[in-house]
């Protein structure tokens, strides 16, 4: 009887069993973490991020449209607050050194992860995957071209060769993504996997934490966005068939 009343009260206020479970995990994770053992802090992760992740994967559908909008708005604000805070911490702590230093790799790594996920997710939500892929690939091409020009600005031959090898493939892929999304999608995923092995981005067993973070940094910057775009392009092409 009391259980039924409680259930209807939760329903009335739009609180789902998933929300209550998540809240309990965060609360107990925090409480047990500070009173018994640090390991209990691990409970906070599934509580805080589990429901959002499952909703994104389409496993659970427990929110109505107003709740979804509130959740999106909250996530965006959390992204802004987290990003600004991390940037301030990273810059303030290494202000006098003019270098991030190895101990700041994790902080900047979180920042890069946030920016990459935000950028890719915004592009794919707002534009059609083909247009998003075009913009991301074109952006990649421009970034590489800038690097090449900065490092070989006074060597015309090296500039042309490296520009053609590094930047031009991105521009070509950007234009072809609109015409052949499936082919370019598969090529992007393949290129991302190839880049992981070519640049030795899989950390060996027992590698030092700094080296692992360094490799993750490169994965986030290069193969991950390309692979996500490739999968989105391929998925879009399959849906259209």
């Amino acid at each position: 009887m009391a259980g039924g009343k409680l259930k209807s009260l939760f329903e009335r206020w739009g609180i789902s069993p998933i929300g209550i479970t998540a809240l309990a995990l965060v609360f107990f994770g925090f409480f047990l973490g500070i009173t018994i053992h640090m390991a209990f802090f691990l409970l906070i992760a599934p509580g805080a991020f589990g429901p959002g992740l499952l909703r994104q994967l389409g496993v659970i559908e427990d929110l109505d449209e107003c709740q979804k909008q509130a959740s999106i708005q909250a996530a965006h604000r959390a992204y802004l607050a987290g990003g600004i805070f991390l940037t301030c911490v990273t810059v303030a702590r290494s202000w006098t050194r003019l270098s991030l230093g190895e101990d700041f790799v994790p902080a900047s790594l979180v920042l890069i992860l946030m920016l990459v996920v935000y950028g890719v997710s915004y592009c794919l939500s707002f534009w059609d995957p083909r247009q998003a892929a075009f913009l991301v690939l074109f952006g990649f091409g421009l970034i590489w071209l800038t690097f090449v020009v900065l490092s070989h600005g006074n060597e015309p031959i090296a500039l042309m060769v490296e520009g053609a090898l590094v930047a031009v493939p991105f521009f070509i892929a950007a234009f072809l993504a609109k015409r052949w999304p499936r082919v370019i999608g598969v090529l992007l995923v393949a290129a991302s996997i190839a880049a992981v092995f070519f640049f030795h981005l899989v950390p060996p067993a027992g590698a030092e934490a700094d080296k692992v973070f360094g490799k993750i940094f490169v994965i986030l910057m290069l193969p991950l966005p390309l692979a996500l775009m490739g999968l989105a392009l391929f998925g879009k092409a399959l849906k259209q068939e």
Partner: protein
Amino acid sequence: MSGQKLKVNLRRYRFEAGDMTQQELAERVGVTRQTIISIEKGKYEPSIQLALRLARLFGVPVERLFELDERKEDGNGGR
């Protein structure tokens, strides 16, 4: 983006439909009571799908439930 406010007549139609409660309305259109409260307060603008479901439930065209505030439009230059 336009800055034009939405005038919501949901509460009026709810009362006209035999003092229907927010909870009852929420259950009938498949949302939470809090969503109905937010719509009535003008805090949340519903999707076209939800607006159509509400209109169908009350048996009125959707523009009877939701109207663009004309005064505000005139204030903006009446484009």
